[in-house]
């Protein structure tokens, strides 16, 4: 752009990387970006969709960094929090607020302490601003449940779920439960946490405790006795939607898909816990991080970011994706409240948010650590001994944390 300096320098072009496919809020992103561009003549945002979720985005970011053409603002999945922080150049929201606003007001007024804690790295530094929030919930097929006389409130505990599953399985041959099995152990961590286990303690993996082992033993037994279905995520959800599985423990982000495809009476309830423990789940979703290098670009990115957190923008986003809005204002806005009323399945997630903790992300070789936990899950579900498997995984992770 050397030719026409006057107009070119007036308009800042920034790119925004996201993971939202058409089935998952892609349209909402397009909508928001268009609105922003229409109202901000001096900034032009281009949104780029990255397939294969946060992992795919991280791959692309990796290659982009290697080639020197990074985006200006990007979504970062929680699981990549530490990895992102230690490998990429970014501007913290705190720095941005200080540099462009001169104060921290924006951050303080919009986010609760708890919410902000999700976006901190292992050293306690705020890497980005929380953008989408999710929690696991228990989706239920009310038709099946009522057919076998199962009460919803009996499903508040994992023990209750087991009993219900047994009933269903014995009488119909169908599976009682499906727990999501993606390329992470987010949901499984939620089960362990709700059994009083810790995933990490003092920067070290600690999930191989008795509580952790107990939770996994429960899970393993459900699978081996055919009460729970063990299959990749997409197939598991298909089975739930088709009515072959009565309950699905998965992210709230599946809401709109379930609503559109299920021909039974579907509903959602809060994530269960084990008897004698309370529900604790890792939060899902992503934050927005500024990766722009040039100060002008950073400024434009910050401006766009702040606009995205405006209540109606956040609610639009929420409606499009099924995620919960990240800011206090939006969460309490009447627009969102009306929305939840129309979509009662969202309600349990909103409630669970109060019991959410940051998603464990190990500071060193975090990706390998996550992989070790996935490997452990897969091994246990194929029947290997819970205690030793978890122990090995824990040792492996800790060996790399030194």
């Amino acid at each position, binding site marked *: 752009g050397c030719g026409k300096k006057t107009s070119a320098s007036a308009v800042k072009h920034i790119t925004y990387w996201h993971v939202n*496919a058409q089935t998952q809020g892609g349209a909402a992103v397009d909508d928001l970006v268009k609105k922003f561009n229409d109202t901000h003549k001096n900034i032009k945002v281009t949104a780029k969709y990255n397939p294969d979720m946060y992992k795919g985005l991280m791959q692309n970011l990796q290659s982009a960094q290697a080639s020197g053409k990074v985006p200006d603002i990007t979504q970062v999945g929680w699981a990549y929090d530490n990895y992102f922080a230690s490998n990429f150049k970014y501007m913290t929201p705190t720095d941005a607020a200080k540099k462009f606003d001169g104060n921290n007001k924006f951050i303080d007024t919009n986010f609760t302490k708890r919410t902000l804690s999700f976006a901190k790295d292992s050293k306690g530094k705020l890497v980005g601003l929380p953008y989408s929030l999710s929690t696991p919930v228990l989706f239920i097929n009310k038709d099946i449940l009522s057919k076998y006389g199962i009460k919803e409130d009996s499903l508040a505990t994992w023990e209750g779920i087991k009993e219900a599953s047994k009933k269903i399985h014995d009488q119909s041959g169908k599976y009682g439960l499906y727990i999501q099995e*993606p390329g992470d152990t987010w949901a499984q961590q939620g089960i362990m946490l709700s059994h009083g286990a810790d995933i990490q303690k003092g920067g070290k993996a600690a999930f191989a405790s008795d509580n952790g082992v107990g939770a996994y033993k429960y899970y393993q037994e459900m699978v081996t006795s055919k009460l729970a279905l063990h299959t990749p995520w997409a197939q598991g959800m298909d089975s739930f939607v088709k009515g072959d599985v009565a309950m699905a423990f998965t992210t709230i982000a599946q809401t709109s898909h379930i609503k559109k495809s299920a021909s039974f009476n579907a509903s959602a309830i809060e994530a269960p816990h084990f008897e004698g423990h309370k529900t604790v789940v890792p939060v899902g979703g992503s934050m927005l991080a500024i990766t722009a290098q040039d100060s002008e670009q950073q400024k434009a990115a910050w401006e766009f970011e702040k606009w995205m957190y405006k209540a109606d923008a956040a609610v639009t986003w929420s409606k499009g994706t099924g995620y919960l809005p990240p800011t206090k204002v939006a969460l309490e806005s009447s627009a969102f409240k009306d929305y939840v009323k129309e979509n009662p399945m969202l309600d349990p997630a909103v409630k669970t948010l109060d019991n959410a903790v940051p998603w464990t992300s190990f500071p060193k070789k975090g990706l390998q650590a996550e992989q070790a936990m996935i490997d452990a899950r897969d091994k246990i579900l194929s029947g290997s001994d819970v205690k030793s498997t978890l122990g090995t995984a824990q040792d492996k992770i800790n060996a790399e944390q030194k």
Partner: protein
Amino acid sequence: MLKKKLNLWHLLLLVIILGSIFPILFMVSNSFKTLRDSYGTMLNLIPLRPTFENYLLLNKQVNLLGLTWNTFLMATMVTVGKLLTGLLTAYAFRSYQFKGKMLIYLIFVSTIFVPFTIVMIPNYLVISKLNLLNNIVGVALPQLCDATGIMIFLKTMEKIPNSLIDAAKIDNIPNRKIFFNIVVPILKPSIVSVGAIFFINSWNEYVWPTLILKDKSSFTLPLALQNYISSEGGTNFPLAMALSTIMVILPLIIYLIFQKYILNSISNSGLK
């Protein structure tokens, strides 16, 4: 006795045809169902309530024309490139004697054996240095030559009698003209069939374009498919199937037009 045996073989072949065609019918039929129906009436090959909804929605959500155009352009570039380099290389091998010919030929052939994972990262870096990210040229560039093409063309050319080239040499026809006026027309059947295969493969390409094309406006059809396969948001199967159906239209047309060539000269042209 003899007749009975024949029927049994036909039965086996029929089973294979059913096996290969059923998934396609399944795909097409589901593209005319709503999401809910596709879950509810999966086994019905003929939709109970056929709907164009998916196609209309697709048309609204993505720029079908643009996607098709991108895919077409990319596949055309790749095809033309592979054909040209293949023909030129094969012609050089066919018509000239020079030192190290066998070695060069072997190096060329061995490229078939390079797993794509080995070159993925470095090639990505080269393309981005060339400022060709988000550009279908960047997708096409590293694929402009292909050892399979070289092999097939060489083997077809070996079947052209020497005397034909000699006859032209006696008449003092320049090399360039021998190539374009005599060799290329003779190779037409293999050019068409190999070209069609190149085009179809390139049209369906997935992994490499995923790395290079990030911008929706530069997407090819298979990449757009990713919009509808999401683990998080759930896969919208009917929409994906509608897009798949649209995706196969052009390859199918090409196949139907050049079917004779393709079926008779994939290997007729060589490979032996």
